[in-house]
C-alpha cells in the first residue's frame, strides 16, 4: 500500500471515529440535560467561529477585503430576513463583483 493510500485511510478512519462518537453513544449513555444544552450551544459557537475564521482569514492571514465584504452583505441580508437563496447568492455576488473590479 502506498504512503498516500495509507494517509487517506488514516484520515478517513480517524475522521469517521470522531463523527461516530455522538451517534454511537446516543441512547446508550444518558447525557445530563445540562450537558445536552451545552452541546447544542457548543455546536452554534463552533459554527460562528467557523464563519468568522472562514470569512476573514485564509492560511492563517487576512483573506483580503472581497470575501469579508461579501459575507457582511450576506449577514445584512440575513438580518433583514431575506430568503436563504438571496443571502447566499448576495454574498457570492458581492465578492465576485469586487474581485471583477480588482479588489482582492
Amino acid at each position, binding site marked *: 500500500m502506498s504512503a498516500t493510500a495509507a494517509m487517506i485511510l488514516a484520515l478517513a478512519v*480517524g475522521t469517521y471515529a470522531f463523527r461516530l462518537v455522538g451517534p454511537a453513544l446516543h441512547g446508550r449513555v444518558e447525557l445530563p440535560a445540562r450537558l445536552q444544552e451545552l452541546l447544542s450551544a457548543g455546536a452554534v459557537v463552533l459554527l460562528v467561529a467557523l464563519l468568522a475564521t472562514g470569512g476573514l482569514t485564509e492560511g492563517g492571514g487576512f483573506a483580503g477585503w472581497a470575501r469579508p465584504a461579501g459575507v457582511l452583505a450576506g449577514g445584512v441580508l440575513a438580518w433583514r430576513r431575506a430568503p436563504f437563496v438571496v443571502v447566499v447568492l448576495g454574498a457570492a455576488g458581492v465578492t465576485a463583483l469586487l474581485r471583477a473590479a480588482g479588489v482582492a
Partner: protein
Amino acid sequence: MRSLLRTDPRRGTRPSADGPDRADRTVRALVRDSSLVWLAGGIVGVSFGAISVAGGLPVWVPVLMSLLVYAGSAQFSAVGVLLAGGGPFAAAATGLLLNTRTAAFGLAVAEFIGEGRPARFLGAHLVTDETVAFALAQPDSAHRRAAFWISGAGLFAAWNAGVLIGALAGGALGDTAAYGLDAAFPAVLVALVLPALRMDTRLRRSAALGALLALAATPAVPAGVPVLLALAGLVLYGRKEAA
C-alpha cells in the same frame, strides 16, 4: 424558525401536527434551500479535484479521499500539505486536527440521526458543518431529522460528483475564486445560525467570545485549533434563570 435550542430533547419527536401537505412543503423547502449549498459544494469539489490533479496527484487520490474522508477543509489541507512536500504523516495529522470538531457536531445532532444501526453508521459519515447547521436551524425533531438527511445525502452526492468531474476535466472552470464561492459558505452559516442568535442572549455572548478567541488564535496555532478554542466561549453561557 423557532428556537434552535430545546431543553427537553424528548419533546416533539412526532410530526403529529403535520398533514401530508405540510410535510411535502417542508421537504420542498428543505430541498430548495439545500440545493444551493449542493451546487456550491459541487463547484468547490470540482476545484478540489482539479487542484489535486494539477498538482501532480493521480485521479484516484482526490476521488477516494472525497468518498472516504468527505470533509472539504480537511481534504484541501491534506492535499495542500502533500503537494507542498510535507509528507503523508503531516497531511493526515493536519486533516485530523481540522476534523476534531466533527465529534462535537456528532454529539449535537446524534438524536436527529435515527436509532437503528444503519442510520447511525451511515448518518455519522454525513456530519459536516453545513448539514449540522441546516439540521439545527429547524424548529423541531422531525424537521431536524429530515433536514439532516436531505442536506447530508445531497451534499455527499454533489461533492463527490464535483470532485470526480474536476479530477477528470482539470481546470475547465478556471479560477473559482472569481465566483465568490469562498464568501458563500460563511454566508450559509450566517443565515442558518442567525435565528438562534437573535433570540438567545447567552448564546450570542458565548458565540461572540468564541469567535474573537478563534480569530485571535488563527495566526499563531495550527489550522483546526482556533475553532476548538472557541468552545471556551461557553464560559459565558450561564444557566437559565428558571433552572
